[in-house]
Structures are given as C-alpha cells and as structure tokens.
C-alpha cells in the first residue's frame, strides 16, 4: 500500500517563510499546468481581470444612468443638491486618489524591476491614501450630512429642503459614493494582501507579479469611477 507524503518520516523540513527556497518566493513560481508558459498564464489572468472590470463599469453605469435620467427630470433639485456638497472635499479626495493611482502604477513598475523596497513603499502609500479617502468621506461629508438629516429616501429629515426631489438626489449621492467607497475598501484590502505576501514571502518579482498587476488594475478602476463621480456630483450645478 502506498504511503502518502505526510506519513513519510524522511520528508525534509519545509523551507522557512521568506527564504529563497520557499515555494511562494517569486523565482520559484512556475505556471499552472494547463498553460503553455508563464506569459500565457499572465495574459489569461489579465484578460479575466479586464472582463471583471467591465462588469464593474456596467454596475456603476446603472447609477450614472439613473443620475442622467433624474437630473434631466428634476434639474432644480439636482442644482440644489450639488450646492449642499463642498467641492473642496471632492477635489481633495480626487487628488488623494490620483496620487494613489500613481503609486499603484509605480508599485507594478517596482515589481517588474524586482525592487522589493520600492514595491513595499508604494503599496503602503497607496493603502494610506485609501484610508485618507475614506476618512475625508466619512468625517467631513457623510457624518456631517447625515447629522443634518440629509439622508437618502425616506430617511431624509432635513427641514430646509427647497425641492420635493431632494431626497432622491441624496439617494443617488449616497448610492454612487457609497458603492465607490466600498470599492475603495475592497481595493485597499487587495493591495494589503499583496503587501502581506511581499513582506512575508517576497512573492512578487520580474517573472511573477500577476497579483500586483491585477490589484493595481482594480485600484485604477476605482480612480476612474471617482474621476467621473467628482464633476457629476460636485461641479455640475
């Protein structure tokens, strides 16, 4: 009867984490057996990520479409609504996200060049930017507005509204920015996972950086969505 691996006492001790013998170390990574090369696997992963990003764009397109329809129906309520938003917080968050997008792209470049320190640094800055974005959003926008009763739908209790459709404006506002903020959190978690694997296993380098690339793609998508949400909500009045 054949023995299974775990029962074999003569098995060598597993290599320590982070050593260049560990299977997760980037130089030790091959590719799945159903691909012909690592390059092919990378391209397939990237295509899969782009297909997923397409569904994400369609998800947000629903909100953009609702925005367009309701805006053309109730232009005054939309004008009043956007006057409740302070463009300075929106612009600040735009700059935070653009900067973090740059560090995410730089993180991919660092991985491609095998610069581990730069990769870690760029990932840390990106995650800090994500936290700053969420902080600004909650502290200066959501909490203040909800405290004043500028809430979506039937939660709306702001007594100084000017237009019957203002609750609708807030529904679109919270749905759009809330879904976006959720994506910011998910993107930060993905990049955090990449950071963890980089620090602990040294898992990404010139021949294997698929997850750095796909997580960065996700992060750039978050950035693009905000590039469109910012003028639609804060600047157009």
């Amino acid at each position, binding site marked *: 009867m054949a023995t299974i691996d775990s029962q074999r006492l003569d098995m060598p001790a597993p290599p320590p984490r982070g050593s260049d013998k560990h299977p997760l170390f980037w130089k030790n990574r091959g590719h799945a057996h159903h691909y012909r090369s690592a390059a092919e696997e990378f391209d397939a992963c990237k295509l899969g990520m782009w297909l997923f990003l397409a569904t994400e764009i369609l998800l947000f397109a629903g909100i953009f479409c609702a925005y367009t329809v309701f805006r053309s129906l109730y232009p005054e309520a939309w004008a009043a609504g956007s006057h409740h938003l302070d463009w300075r917080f929106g612009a600040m968050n735009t700059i935070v996200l653009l900067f973090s997008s740059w560090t995410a792209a730089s993180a991919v470049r660092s991985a491609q060049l095998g610069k581990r320190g730069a990769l870690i640094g760029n990932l840390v800055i990106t995650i800090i930017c994500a936290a700053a974005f969420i902080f600004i959003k909650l502290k200066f926008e959501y909490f203040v507005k909800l405290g004043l009763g500028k809430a979506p739908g039937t939660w709306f209790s702001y007594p100084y509204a000017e237009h019957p459709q203002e609750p609708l404006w807030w529904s679109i506002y919270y749905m759009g920015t809330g879904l976006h903020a959720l994506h910011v959190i998910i993107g930060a978690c993905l990049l955090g996972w990449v950071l963890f694997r980089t620090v602990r296993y040294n898992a990404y380098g010139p*021949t294997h950086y698929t997850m750095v690339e796909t997580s960065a793609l996700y992060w750039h998508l978050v950035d693009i969505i905000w590039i469109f949400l910012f003028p639609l909500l804060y600047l157009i009045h």
Partner: protein
Amino acid sequence: MERHHDDRHTPNPAFDTMDPHGATHADHGHHIISARTLMAILLALLFFTILTVFLSRAEVWVQNTFSVVLPQWVNVLGAMSIAVVKGTLVVAFFMGLRYDKPLNLFVLLFCLAAVAQFIIPATLDLYTRDWVTAEHKGEIIKGGTGEGLAKTGEGHMFVRASPRPNTGSEPLFEFRREQRLEELAHEVAAKHGRAEANDEDKAEAAREFWFEHYDEELHEKGHAIRHLDDLEDFYAQWRKGHVTMAAETTDTVAPESLEETTASTANHSLRRVGRTLGLFDAQAPSPSAEEHATPERAVPLSPTEGEDH
C-alpha cells in the same frame, strides 16, 4: 510523464520549446512604463483636476457677477470632457492599455458601448418624447417624485428598514419642515411655561427656524447678508417661493389619486441655478415664468392614460 500537446502543428511565438516554463523570460516581454512617463501622467491628471475645478468656479463667478444664467450644456460639456480626458490617460498609461494586448482594449470598448446603450436611449427618450407626440412633453410616470407617502410600512411582508412616515398628501420635504417647526414651537412653549403652543409661540418658532438655518448652513457658505432686514427679506421671499411651489405640486395631484400614476409638474417650473439667485431683488415674475408655472394640463392624467408611455 510528459503530455503531448499539438504545439508542433501550431507554432506559437509565446511558447519556447526549449524553455516551456518560461524560467528565462525575465519580464514576459511586457512593457515597463518609465518612471518619467508615470510622473508626467500624474502631473497631467492633477493639472486637469485643477482646470475642471477652475472652470466650474469661473462659471459660478460669471453667473453671480454679471447676473446671467449660463446654459446647462456649458457646465456639463466642460466638466465631462475633462473627465473623459483624465479617464483616458489613466486607462492608457496607468492601466497600460496603450502597451497591452488589443483584446483587453476590445473588452473595454465593448463595455463602453454597452454603457452608451444604457444612457443614450434613456436621454433621447426624455428629451425627444414631445417630437413624436407634443402633448407628452414633461409627462413622466410617477417615481422618485417626492410626492406624499400615504402608505406606512404596516402590512408589509418584510419589516421595513427605513422609517416610512405617513405624510398624507404632503411631499416628504414639506412634512419634515413642519415636523421641525412643531418641535421648535413645542420648545418655545415649554420655555414660556405653556403646555400647548399658541400662535405667538408658533411665530417665534418660525423665526427661530430660519435663523437656525442661517447659522448652520448659509453662514458657512459665506452668503453676503448685510443686516437682519436683509435676512428677514430673504426668508420672506424664500418662504413665498415654497408656498408657490407647494401649490404647483399639489394642485394637479388629488390626494386620493396619489397611489396612482400622476403627471409630474417638475418640468413646468422655472429653471433656476443655485439657491440665492435674486436674493435682494424685488422678484417680479417674468412672463416666461408665468408661462411655465401654469401646467399645460390642469386635470391630472387618469391612471390608464398614463401607463402607456
């Protein structure tokens, strides 16, 4: 055991038979974008952000300084075209589509075509419905109109998470204002040692209501209110505006027909930018305002009539 693929018959440049696992391919042949390019793109994106904010503020300034109302498309076109440029930069360089396989670009373009399928027909319908049948202009099936919530959550299959007050025939925003006014009147009455608020208390509460709003909102926004008379004048006008609007909203909607399809009058009212336009002016209703304020159809649509479009 080695498995035999039919690679021999279909040679693939990406597959190196001498190195099937790609161990010697240092960078998969992928383009590494230079640091200089990345920095240039970041600076361009920041520049466009400042530009779009500047344009938006400039429009507000022009409108306030010269008392003109710029057409909507100026604002929309300016902001959205800059957003498209920024998005293109991110996609092309940060996401690397410029150097990538064309298939990924195809996925994105196909997706954007689908987005256009969402938005363009919806917009076309809203803006050109009257080209087909002129009388259908501005008639929108009820939905998100902010009309009264006559039904509470009782009798629902599931517990409603949101509070759903019975506002009767009133729109929600009117209901919330009256709620706050009652609350303030109660506070004022308690201050004077009365159990019930009398008319005097209510008047004081109403005054406090607007001043409270001034303190919380308008003051921060830097509205140039010079003295208290101006403030009173402003609120008097504003409230008058509210009364007219409420009349417009409720006139065409009989309370019993609230559950049914009704014609929204939102499109009939005068387009206005911002909340402080004509703050200190004596507001004479312009001829065009009168024209728009009167709904074309005084009698609301019957439910069967409204369901067709």
